[in-house]
C-alpha cells in the first residue's frame, strides 16, 4: 500500500465508493440473469480502484468520458443508484430517460459525458472537452477512460497528437485489464502501451490499478499539473475484470483460466486489500465496515426495487430529443 493519507473521511468515502460499484454490478448482474434487464451489460467488478482512485481526485465540474464498461465511472463520478438502475431498465426516470441504457449512461450533472458503445469512441469527445475548457478559459480537467483494446484504434493517436501539440488539459486513462474483449491483450498490442503516448511527448505512468491509494495519489498530482497547463498525461492502470467481456460471456476458459481469475480475486481484490488496510491503520473497525457494506446493500436493493416499479417512458417520447429545437421530430 502506498503512503498513508491523512483524511479519514476521504479514505472511508473511497472505500464506500468501491463497495457501491461492486454492489451496483452485483445487482445489475442479477437483473440480467433474471431477465429483468433488457439488453446486455459489461461488469466493472474488479476494476473499482481505477474509477474511484481517479474520480476522487476530480471536481464535480471536471469531465470524464466513459466506456461500454461504464457503470463504475458513473458511480465514482457521483451518480445516484436510483437514476442509474432506472436507466439500465429503460425507465423514464433514468439518467437518459431510458434512451441510453447501460452502454450510453451519462450524468452530465456530475461531468460524466457518457459511456460509449464504440471502442475508443469517446477519445475525441474527451479531447474536445479539454479543448473547449482551454478555449473558454476554464481550469476543468477531462479524464478519458478507455480500455487496452481501444489502443488499437487510430483515433487515439490522432487526438493524443493534437492534445500534446496544443497542451490540452486531458488525462488519458487506459484501464488495462489484460483482455481485449475475448483476446489476451499481449496478443494484439505490440510494444508497450505507455510508449505510444511517450512517442507524442506525453508523460506516461503505469500504476497498480488494484491499489486505490496509489491510483488516487498519482491522479491527484497529475490533475494538479494538468490544471496548470502541463498536460496532457497518460496513465496505464493495471487491473482485472472479474466477469467476462459482458454478462453473457460465461464460458470463457478458452481465453482465460479459472485459476487466473481466482488468483486476482483472492490476492489482489482492491476492496479486500483496502479494507484490511483501513482496519490495520485503525481508520475503521470491522464492525463499522460491515455496517457500511450493509447500508450500501440496502441502498442498492431499494434503488433496484424502485427502478423495477418505475414507469417506462411514454411512447410519445420516441421521436423526442432527435433535435434540440424540434419537440417531436416525426410530428
Amino acid at each position, binding site marked *: 500500500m502506498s503512503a498513508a493519507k491523512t483524511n479519514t473521511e476521504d479514505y472511508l468515502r473511497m472505500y464506500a465508493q468501491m463497495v457501491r460499484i461492486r454492489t451496483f454490478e452485483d445487482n445489475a448482474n442479477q437483473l440480467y440473469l433474471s431477465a429483468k434487464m433488457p439488453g446486455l451489460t459489461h461488469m466493472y467488478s474488479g476494476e473499482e480502484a481505477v474509477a474511484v482512485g481517479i474520480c476522487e481526485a476530480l471536481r464535480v465540474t471536471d469531465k470524464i468520458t466513459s466506456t461500454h464498461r461504464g457503470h463504475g465511472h458513473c458511480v465514482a463520478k457521483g451518480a445516484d443508484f436510483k437514476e442509474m438502475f432506472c436507466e439500465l431498465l429503460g425507465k423514464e426516470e433514468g439518467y437518459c430517460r431510458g434512451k441510453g441504457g447501460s452502454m450510453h449512461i*451519462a450524468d452530465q450533472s456530475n461531468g460524466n459525458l457518457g459511456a460509449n458503445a464504440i471502442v475508443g469512441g*469517446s477519445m475525441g469527445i474527451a*479531447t474536445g472537452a479539454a479543448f473547449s475548457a482551454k*478555449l473558454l478559459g476554464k481550469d476543468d480537467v477531462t479524464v478519458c477512460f478507455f480500455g487496452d483494446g481501444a489502443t488499437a484504434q487510430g483515433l487515439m493517436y490522432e*487526438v493524443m*497528437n*493534437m492534445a500534446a501539440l496544443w497542451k490540452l488539459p486531458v488525462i488519458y486513462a487506459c484501464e488495462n485489464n489484460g483482455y481485449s474483449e475475448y483476446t489476451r491483450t499481449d496478443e494484439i498490442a505490440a510494444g508497450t502501451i505507455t510508449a505510444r503516448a511517450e512517442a507524442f511527448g506525453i508523460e506516461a505512468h503505469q500504476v497498480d490499478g488494484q491499489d486505490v491509494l496509489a491510483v488516487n495519489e498519482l491522479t491527484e498530482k497529475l490533475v494538479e499539473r494538468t490544471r496548470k497547463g502541463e498536460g496532457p498525461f497518460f496513465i496505464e492502470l493495471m487491473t482485472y475484470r472479474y466477469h467476462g467481456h459482458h454478462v453473457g460471456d460465461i464460458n470463457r476458459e478458452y481465453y482465460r483460466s479459472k485459476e487466473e481469475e481466482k488468483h486476482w480475486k483472492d490476492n489482489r481484490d482492491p476492496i479486500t486489500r483496502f479494507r484490511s488496510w483501513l482496519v490495520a491503520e485503525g481508520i475503521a473497525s470491522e464492525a463499522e465496515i460491515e455496517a457500511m457494506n450493509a447500508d450500501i446493500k440496502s441502498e442498492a436493493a431499494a434503488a433496484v426495487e424502485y427502478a423495477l416499479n418505475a414507469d417506462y417512458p411514454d411512447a410519445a417520447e420516441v421521436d423526442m430529443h432527435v433535435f434540440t429545437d424540434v419537440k417531436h421530430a416525426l410530428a
Partner: protein
Amino acid sequence: MREITLSQAVNEALAEEMRRDPSTFIIGEDVAEAGTPFKILSGLVEEFGTDRVVDTPIAEPGFMGLAVGASMTGTRPIVDLMFGDFIFLVMDQLCNQAAKIHYMSGGKMNAPLVLRTNLGATRRSAAQHSQSLHALVAHIPGLKVALPSSAYEAKGLLKTAIRDDNPVVIFEDKLMYNDKAPVPEEEFLIPFGEANVKRHGTDITLIGTSSMVQVCEKAAKILSAEGISAEVIDPRTIVPLDEETLLASARKTSRVIVVDEGHQSYGVTGEIASRINEKAFYHLDAPVLRMGAMDVPVPFSPALEDITVPTPEGVAENARRLMAGDMFHAA
C-alpha cells in the same frame, strides 16, 4: 445589391458569427494561414487568432471527434472538412457520436457543431475528390443537412447553421466558390426547412438541390421557349425538408423531376420522389422522375465525367417526355 462570390459569402458568415459568439471556433486542415485550398477562410486567422482558427494535423476522425466533445462542453466548433469525400473518414464521430448524443442522453446533452464541406463533380478531380455524399448524412436522424445553391444561400444558411443547437452538415458546391450572386450587406439569416421557389410555372416542377438548382433553372428556360412552363424549387435544406412547398407544387403541376448531384440510387432524389408519391399520388399525371449522378465512381476523363452529371438539356428532355405522356418503361 452588391454581388459577392460564394467563397466571400462563406467567409463573411464565419467572420460575423465568430464576432458575435466568442464560443465559436474553426478547426480543420489548413484553415489558418492557408485559408483552405479554396482560399475561403483567408483573413480569418488574422482577426481571430490561432486559438479560434485551429490548424490540425491531417487527422479527420481526430478533429471531428474533438469537435464533438468541444461542442458538448460549451463551445461551437465549425469543422472544415477539406473535401466532402473525406466524410467517410469522420462517419463514426459524426453519425455515432454527434448525431446521437442528444437522443441517447434523453435530451440532456447536445452537440452544436457545424461541419462545413463540399460536393460537386466536373472539376476533373477524379473519384475521391468529386463525390456528393450528402444523402449519407441525411439518412442519419439527428443531423441537419443544408445545401446552399448560391452565395446568398451559402451565407444565410451557414449563419443559421452556426446558431443551431444541433449538429449541422453544410455542403457547398466547390464549383461555385467563384460564382457571384447578389448578397445583402445587412445581416440576414435563412431559416432551415424553407424551400425557395426560384421560378414559378404551371406544367412541371423541377426540384433541384445545390449545384442542380442552376441546372434546373437553365432547363426551365429551354422549356419556356417551347411553351412548357416549369416551376423550379430549391429545398435549401434536405433535413429538415420543406415538404409542404414541394407537395403544393406537385399538386399544382402534376409532374415532377427531382434533380440532385448525389448518386441516383438510394439517394435524395428517391427520398423526395417517394414523399411526393406518398402524399400527392392522386394529383400526379406522370411518374415522379429522379435524376442524380450516374451510379459510377466519378471518372477522371472530362469526356466521361461530364456525362455522369445531370445537365439542363437532359432535364429538359425528360420534362418533354413527361409532358408527352411517355411511360418511361425503358428508362
